[in-house]
């Protein structure tokens, strides 16, 4: 594959997002302090958002920044600081002998297998799926309306189910985080 066959801008965007993603991901699994890991996670999430924009998934890139980097990582940071668990875990200790080599071997096999699957087989990049009924995917921000149409017509029931899922998740989180003896304290 020769890089000059593609436009320089696209290659530059890809390299930028790749660096952001890989450096951030390595930061998450290497650093000791959970707060720093959360910051590295934000870096990776921004890299993925760049990759989304480069592949004309503008709406998902915006949601990626707002929901992931804005809400989920802030939730992580709240819990980290609420629990005060920063600066505790030592990365150097290895409680299980041979766990890291085994993990590295297994992960290496999976990644090499995925790449080999992409390189050698054509069925994964073959024909259009049967769900493509309308016009082909518009480039740029033009497919936001396509995404909205798909969500509110073909996938309407799944969309309604996510509403129920979110309500259940919120109620569950409140029940889990509630102090169990708060009623006793009030009555006492």
């Amino acid at each position, binding site marked *: 594959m020769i890089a000059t066959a593609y436009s320089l801008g696209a290659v530059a965007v890809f390299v930028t997002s790749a660096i952001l993603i890989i450096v951030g991901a390595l930061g*998450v*699994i290497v650093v000791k302090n959970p707060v720093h890991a959360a910051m590295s996670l934000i870096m990776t999430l921004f890299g993925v958002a760049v990759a989304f924009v480069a592949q004309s998934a503008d709406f*998902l890139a915006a949601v990626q920044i707002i929901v992931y980097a804005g809400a989920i990582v802030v939730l992580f940071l709240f819990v980290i600081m609420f629990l005060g668990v920063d600066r505790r875990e030592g990365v150097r200790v290895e409680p299980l002998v041979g766990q890291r080599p085994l993990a590295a071997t297994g992960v290496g096999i999976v990644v090499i297998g995925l790449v080999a699957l992409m390189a050698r087989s054509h069925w994964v990049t073959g024909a259009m799926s049967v769900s493509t009924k309308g016009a082909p995917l518009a480039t740029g921000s033009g497919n936001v309306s396509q995404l909205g149409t798909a969500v509110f017509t073909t996938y309407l029931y799944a969309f309604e189910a996510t509403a129920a899922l979110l309500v259940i998740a919120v109620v569950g989180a409140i029940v889990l985080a509630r102090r169990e003896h708060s009623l006793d304290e009030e009555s006492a």
Partner: protein
Amino acid sequence: MNVPAAWYLVLAAVLFGVGAYGLLTRRSALIMFMCLELMLNAVNLTFVTFSRTLSDIAGQVTVFFVMVVAAAEVTVGLGIVVAIFRRRSTTSVDELSEMKG
């Protein structure tokens, strides 16, 4: 012309591998959740790449739903972490072994 889809697919595979390695080796439940997010993002990137390659909006719709489920999962998961920390004063998964057979 955009770069070929294989570049993004390989990038997503590497990101998935890094996340899986972190999930297998780290001890803190919080870091394990973050590694889970890395793996989910790798899959999302794959979905978006195939959505572009096959010119099919269904891939992006799937990513949308994955994001919703990930948000719900993090909410409940961190709630469980907080509840465990209240009882045990630790988030290390090695010390939570009461249900060991």
